[in-house]
């Protein structure tokens, strides 16, 4: 009896998640009356704005990942090594972006860095890009910090640091040759999550008026019927590919025990 109930719950859950996806995919294939076709996809992929905005968002994602790694790895390492008592506070701070809506953050940014402020970042496209990258890094912070901190927990950070020091290594060498390679899997999983967040982000990019993928999806959605569904499927595929890549790099890590 319990087994039947368990299966029923599972099937209900799967339908709940899968039906909208199936419906959306089905709709995205129905542009041509009466037959399934990839016309909607063709239309999306042949739109130059798709490639422009997608390229922009990928570049922003890469920049965000690099900045996030350089910010989070040394911080999490230092907190574990020297300031363990501060960890709960740092964790609280890294969770704030989940509580504070992106729209609040971006309005704060605009107030602080507008053209009549002491640091007019929004005055130039490059400055606005920078601001957007900081915003993305903030949004990704909870995931990146948690991933890296979990990775560091599997290491004996203190002893490895001392071993490297006794062999003559300075802080740079310790961070980039000892700590970073050993938390690489964690960093990569944080990186793919960051990528997925940045690709789909709408609020910040729209309010800062940057040509990102999120606002493009919105514009397309407001003006077309079939293309938005095709675009949503593409965005899903990208996110899932990221998840798959996390799994893949975890498996390919050759210096960790298989299955551990």
């Amino acid at each position: 009896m319990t087994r039947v109930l368990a299966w029923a719950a599972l099937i209900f859950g799967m339908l709940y998640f899968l039906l909208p996806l199936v419906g959306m995919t089905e709709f995205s294939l129905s542009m041509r009356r009466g037959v399934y076709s990839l016309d909607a996809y063709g239309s999306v992929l042949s739109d130059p704005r798709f490639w422009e905005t997608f390229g922009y968002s990928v570049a922003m994602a890469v920049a965000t990942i690099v900045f996030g790694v350089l910010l989070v790895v040394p911080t999490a390492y230092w907190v574990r090594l020297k300031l363990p008592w501060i960890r709960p506070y740092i964790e609280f701070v890294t969770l704030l972006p989940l509580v504070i809506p992106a729209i609040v953050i971006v309005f704060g940014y605009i107030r602080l860095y507008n053209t009549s402020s002491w640091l007019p970042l929004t005055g130039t496209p490059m400055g606005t890009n920078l601001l957007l990258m900081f915003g993305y890094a903030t949004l990704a912070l909870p995931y990146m910090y948690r991933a890296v901190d979990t990775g560091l927990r599997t290491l004996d950070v203190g002893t490895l640091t001392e071993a490297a020091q006794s062999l003559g290594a300075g802080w740079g060498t310790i961070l980039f040759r000892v700590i970073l390679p050993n938390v690489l899997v964690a960093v990569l999983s944080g990186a793919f999550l960051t990528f997925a967040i940045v690709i789909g982000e709408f609020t910040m990019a729209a309010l800062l008026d940057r040509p990102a993928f999120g606002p493009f999806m919105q514009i397309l959605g407001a003006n077309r019927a079939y293309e938005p569904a095709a675009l949503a499927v593409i965005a899903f595929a990208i996110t899932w590919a990221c998840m798959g890549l996390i799994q893949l790099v975890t498996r390919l890590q050759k210096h960790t025990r298989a299955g551990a």
Partner: protein
Amino acid sequence: MAYLDISHLEKSFGVNHVVKDFSLPIEKGEFVSLLGPSGCGKTTVLRMVAGFESPDRGAIRLEGKDMVPLRPNQRNVGMVFQAYALFPNLTVAQNVGFGLRIAGVDSAESKARVAQMLDLIGLPMAEYGDRYPFQLSGGQQQRVALARALAPRPRVLLLDEPLSALDAKVRVRLRGEIREIQRQLGITTIFVTHDQEEALSISDRVVVMNAGIADQVGTPFEIYNRPATPFVASFVGTLTPFEARVLDPATGTVTSGGLTLNLGRPLPSQAGATVPIALRPEAVQLGRASGREIVLPATAHSVEFMGSVIRVRAEAAGQTFLLDTFNRPDSPPPQPGEPVEISFSGRDVIVIGA
């Protein structure tokens, strides 16, 4: 001045005064052990030499130069940790070559040095060089850690309980190997351990530490046979302690529990003074023997069969004696409760602190 001169070190963590006026001159090529229970400050002394802790007072001079202001990565001191601490992302060869790479040794020379080190520890390059640490046993990992510490030719080697995480058999074999390698390279070594057997078997000199103080510094023979304090006596080896009253300090005659003992050597105490004395289990024998002038009737209490040695707890003259006797297949040990005779010599009596 000694090669490595540790003088008047003091260290406190908060209200905890862990190292108190610790001084130790070490000669070049010497193997010195710091022995003591946990919390005695031995590891803190080692970490101050490595540079991971800085002393509140005192100096650490290597070849006459004060090391205290130097950072750990400027000291050229090799260290082996209890937890191995191999870099998990690097192969055995890369681990051993880590220090060489940082020192900027060119790759051909570094490769040769790594191969030489791996040969020294008995894990040849061809077979083990490309393995990762998780593919090695604990003993092998600790050997690689030793090779890694030795590869950049450090001026001093520090071993922080390197054998404590290994099983008994590996521990005994590896400690012999460590000593052998240390002799071959002639490297000045400080070894921290809480295991007295380890310290006695491996060292040129042993420092017995208790509550932040070096209670006694001496060769293993001195430490074992002439313990300077009651703590050293009780911590190193097993013994049966007694209280004795000095009768004649010039001839070394004392009395304890109604027995008059002649120690065969003059005592620094006054007549009538009380001195702590002790007997090692191996100084007491089951039955009579030539040269053991004191013979007592006793009752065996408990018998512990330890293989090559049998330890008997016997009661005689109102005292409990521990005695060790070698196992012989043709003479089974006494049964508990059985009357026996025990014998020893006054010359084998240890006077603690004299």
